[in-house]
């Protein structure tokens, strides 16, 4: 589904070139549940940004279902993100003035969908992440775990092929982290969307079926494994 082909990314920082990624090549299959791990500065966030079409590689290319992201202009990249990519953030980044329902609804409004046409879909998804009782609450009235559930529902509501999660458990305690990972694993099976994490968190690595370790912008290893899980 997603092919990263000899991708390098060089940033210019303080007048000096800094290579964040060195000639990375890998492939992400449909419905993957994988993580990029590695220390800070290893290139995890850079590769997530490149896969999300937020940034362009300095060399090499990224192909999504055969289409090169490098050849897309700004508007095409926005459309790619809007239609195919869901983001989950460490700090949730929910819109604080809107309710749970409205936060989940929002990506569909960006896709020019009518609220009346998608109301049931949004409610069902909120129910799937276990937040039906909180559907009319605002993020400030929710716990961290609940906020992250809203963020997951928001990422999945447009049925994306790809969900990119940057340190999704970093702000959660252990129990909430496991709950969230269980939920994401279940949704990965239900929605067939590929979940790609970048994380330091060992708890995440217990769940993923593939783990890619980055070190100084190089792939140190890329292994497929049986997920250990926690509750399952």
């Amino acid at each position, binding site marked *: 589904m997603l092919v990263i082909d000899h991708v390098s990314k060089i940033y210019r920082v303080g007048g000096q070139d800094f290579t964040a990624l060195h000639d990375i090549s890998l492939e992400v299959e449909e419905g993957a549940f994988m993580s990029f791990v590695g220390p800070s500065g290893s290139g995890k966030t850079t590769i997530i940004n490149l896969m999300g079409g937020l*940034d362009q590689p300095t060399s090499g290319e990224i192909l999504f279902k055969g289409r090169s992201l490098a050849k897309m202009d700004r508007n095409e990249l*926005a459309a790619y993100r809007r239609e195919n990519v869901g983001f989950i953030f460490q700090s949730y980044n929910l819109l604080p003035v809107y309710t749970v329902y409205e936060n989940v609804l929002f990506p569909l409004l960006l896709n020019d969908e009518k609220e009346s046409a998608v109301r049931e879909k949004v409610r069902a998804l909120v129910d799937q992440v276990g937040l039906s009782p909180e559907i009319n609450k605002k993020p400030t009235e929710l716990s961290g775990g609940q906020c992250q559930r809203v963020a997951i529902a928001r990422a999945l509501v447009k049925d994306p092929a790809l969900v990119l999660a940057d340190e999704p458990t970093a702000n959660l305690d252990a129990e909430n982290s496991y709950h969230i990972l269980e939920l994401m694993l279940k949704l990965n099976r239900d929605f067939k969307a590929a979940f790609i994490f970048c994380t330091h968190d060992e708890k995440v690595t217990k769940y993923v079926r593939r783990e890619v370790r980055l070190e100084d912008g190089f792939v140190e290893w890329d292994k497929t494994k049986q997920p250990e899980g926690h509750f399952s």
Partner: protein
Amino acid sequence: MIRWLLKGIWRDKTRSLFPFLVISVGVTLLIYLLGFMEGIFAGMLDVSAHLDTGHLRFVNKPFYDEEHLIPLDRALGGQNETLEWLRKNSDPRIEWSPRIRWGAIMDVPDEKGETRSQTPVVGVAIEMLAADSPERIRLDLERSVIAGRVPSGPKEMLVGYKLAEALGLQLDDFVTLLGQNFDGGMATDNYKVVGFVRFGLAAMDKKMALIDLTDAQQTFYMEDMVTDFLGFLPREVGYKEYDVLKINIESHLALFKQNPPKNWAADDDPIILSILDQRNLRELAVKFELVDEVVVGVFALLMILVLWNAGLLNGVHRYGEMGLLLAMGETHKKLIGLMALEAFMIGLIGSAAGCLIGGGLVYYLQEVGVSTHGIFETSGLMMSDTIHARLSTYAFVFAVIPGVTASVVGNLIANLAIYQRSEANLFRELEAG
């Protein structure tokens, strides 16, 4: 999406309250200033119209061309027929009143009948004997007479109070008018001074006398003749409409001239004038409009600057939200469009509030007015002692346009920084924040 944005504006007061207040206050002040300035100008026009020019004036051109000489021989005959035609062929809101401008020597005799004092006066003859006469109400004679009473019988006269002082006149004194009649012969007639009037204009208070129209027609041998038909319009008709009404009457006038009243002279050539055609008032109107535009421009600029600043603060406050929207697949253009739409809605709501407050304030000042306590009395300006603001569509339009524009432009300038930022940078900053 509009409903979505409205919810955000309503719930997040930090993004909407300050711009809303700035726009509301700005629009309120603009409507107030424009209404007040229009009120000053319209007040000047009204005073001038009531005392001298009418809002519209139907006058014989030969008379008008030499009116400084008050050539009564060029007055217009067929008073009733002409008046009837004017009423039938002009906008029904116009009230037409016939008048005679006259000039004469006013002679004040002593007890022996010898001249005690004498001076040239200019006068106006109006229909004023009936208590409910529109002219009497228009010139507010009941209030303007500071001593004595308003004439109620024939050959009674009102005299400007300064003129009365200069001539040493007492109430109920008789004066003799010595002038030229319609035929070019000498006209003399005696009048009883029954009241002293204060017009509030030094020039008029020093030189003016008022008599009844029928008396003037007798004194100056002008049966069924007047020098002017003045048209008066209600306050709600703005001066910009006068020219339209004038053109409308002009369109019928040619036909009237082809079949004129039998008492018109062969060389009579009546014309219709708007107040702006007289006493250089059109130039004054242009200057007032220029001042209006400067005021609107300055206010719009100030609002843009303040709202630009507010937009920048708002942009910082919502940097994360914008990064998030871009990550979700919103394009830069659409994002800026959304922000502009939001600013437009805040501008619209703020302008609506400003219209309500400013409109209410101007309406109050229109009905009640502000007293100038006579500060214009000696200025020579034809200004009323009480300034009434004017509520006009024009003021609303000129206040709402900059109100909404300032909101959108201020926001767009502030959002230029976001437009130039790359998605990756916004995304990183979103994560950092």
